[in-house]
């Protein structure tokens, strides 16, 4: 099954290698990994997606925590969350095909961010299925896709604040706050185009 982990790690040289090396040692392929800043200074946030047996989730999480540079791990796949990916897609164009590609981009709420004589570049943000939807339509129209650059999945749990995050932010008031009720949690629609 597909596991998605969010890991807060120290922003230091070699930390990415340590995390990647753990998966390599377990012979688990990382399907995507995104790393960037977080709300905590000096701490990066990683979203890791990996295919592994269901039971492996516990061991991956427990092993991640054994790395000295890992501050916090969340197995977000088990919770309601928002998942987004950004893609840049360069498509070959002729004056004839340009307009329908603009239409497609509009339908997918994507933006054209570069226009050249023989090609244009689309920027699209959304769930993976939305991006794959656009790519599929482009391929069906026999538009030649020249380049694809995808960021990989980034995930944030809905309505969820761990006490640790709030403590790190110095927000002690919300620590006593109730967890969100089920009714407040909006269902994630994978085909949602917005």
């Amino acid at each position: 099954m597909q596991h998605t982990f969010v890991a807060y790690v120290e922003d230091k040289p070699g930390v990415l290698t340590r995390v990647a090396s753990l998966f390599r040692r377990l012979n688990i392929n990382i399907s995507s990994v995104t790393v960037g800043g977080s709300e905590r200074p000096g701490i990066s946030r990683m979203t890791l997606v990996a295919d592994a047996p269901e039971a492996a989730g516990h061991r991956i999480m427990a092993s991640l925590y054994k790395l000295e540079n890992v501050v916090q791990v969340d197995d977000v796949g088990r919770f309601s969350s928002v998942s987004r990916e950004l893609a840049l897609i360069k498509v070959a164009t002729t004056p004839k095909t340009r307009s329908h590609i603009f239409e497609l981009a509009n339908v997918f709420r994507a933006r054209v961010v570069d226009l050249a004589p023989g090609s244009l570049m689309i920027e699209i943000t959304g769930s993976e299925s939305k991006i794959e939807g656009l790519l599929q339509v482009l391929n069906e129209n026999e538009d030649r896709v020249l380049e694809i650059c995808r960021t990989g999945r980034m995930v944030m749990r809905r309505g969820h604040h761990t006490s640790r995050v709030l403590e790190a932010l110095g927000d002690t008031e919300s620590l006593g706050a109730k967890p969100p009720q089920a009714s407040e949690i909006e269902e994630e629609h994978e085909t949602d185009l917005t």
Partner: protein
Amino acid sequence: MSKQKPTSDDSKTRLTGAEIMWATLEGEGVREVFGYPGGAILPVYDALRKFPIRHILVRHEQGAVHMADGYARASGKVGVAIATSGPGATNMVTGIATAMLDSIPLVCITGQVGSKVLGSDAFQEVDITGITLPVTKHNYLVTRAEDVAPALREAFHIAQSGRPGPVLVDITKDAQQATAAFDFAAAAPEKVHVHPMLSVTQPAIAEAVELIRAAQRPVILAGHGIIQSGAMKQVVALAERAQIPVACTLLGLGGFPASHALNLGMMGMHGESWVNHSIQESDLLIALGMRFDDRVTGSLSTYAQKAKKIHIDIDPAEINKNVPVQVALTGDLAAVLDQLLPLVRPRDGAAWLRTIDRMKGDAAVLDIVNLPDNGHLYAAHVINDLWRATSGNAVIATDVGQHQMWEAQYYKHDSPRSLITSGGLGTMGFALPAAIGAKIACPQKEVWVIAGDGGFQMTCPELATIVQENLDLNIAIINNGYLGMIRQWQETFYDKNYQCAPIGSPDFVKLAEAFGIRAAAVRTRSEVMSTVAEARNHKGPFLINFLVEQEDTVYPMIAPGSALHEMIRRPSNNPLVER
């Protein structure tokens, strides 16, 4: 990491990185280190004379790490090994992996080329932090003098805390040469990394207590964690109060006294039949500081199917890794048992203990030490006699192979830290350097090396270290002219195709004498006790070359992939045994 702010009284405590390194070791309580100099670590060696630390010069960096490892296993303290960059560092890798697999607290320090030329393939440059990443608990590359103390202090903390392990600190030459303010106290670790999944909850404790109360056929599985955590008393208390028999892993030997009435012996691939049968028949396994390694479980699909399992371990990643368990208590073993013990009620275990006694049956009779002297010299005799001669009080460092298993079967360890052996990685050549480390750690104790003729040849140059350091330790070579365990597997699983198993050796007596070590050869059983006595009475090191039966086999044995109860037993018609 550089949190030491320059202050006005800098001048008082300004030291070079090399001096800071030694001063930090001194502050951490280090009195002995094992190492080998080289270009990129020379500033460190230059500064050594200013510090009250004994440096043991080894003959190979692998030996330095094994010595630090033996030192740590014998004393419970952190072992320290030092090497230069490049080949010095790569020579350490086997030693580091050995310590990693057995969770031994080490700090390994390597010199590195100057920070300006890092990554340029400079002379004797190797990416040792990259190489050791999977075999260290953590490692550091230090490029500034002011980072030396904080990195080392963190390394000592990490090596000892939680599940112990080796930490490597790679220090560039310019960081050793530059100066910085030194303040030991201020360099203490900022944060303490505690595994957040450690969990010992009241409901889980209550569940464990109930499982123990309801069990009819419980067995305690005693692992290395008992010794690491110092939980010997608690385990004895648990076993005695609930009358639960105890089976030990190889590294657990000594964690529960071998002479205790409730001790069954060693479990696993070469464990005695009644031990493994008890586990397979058990209805409750209480696993204490052990990790269900493949060498103790046999095939997982047939392992202890009738038993519920309680697993107490410091490492949450070990829970449900190999064997699914009903109750997991993750934390320091002694502390967890302290919580559990007051709730465990005395129970009557007599019926189950009688059942186990009946399982012993003829297994004990077939045991080779019970046979009359038939003129042959068996390794089992040698080890049994060594145990008798030393009253079981020696610290034994073994190598890997047949003699290691015979040692585990026939030397009865009553106290923790008295057996030093490479269990997880199974590193040949470990015994001699590890024994040197143990002797340095415990100079008052009697220390013996027990090694095969194969493994001994891997690290025997360290004999020179024994002489140079004036160490009084004894060496028993169990010499059968074969890589014995290889021959045994070839005999059993490869149709007696003894490819590359016969191994020639130098005359070990002459070899020892060339190093300046007294030595003798033993060929018959009648000579064993007198020669061991001679070695023990001799002031200084002594080597005995025991020329034992060449094609002897370790029994019982579980074939790889077989179930724990499917043992190959000692044959009653063993052609080697003339009854």
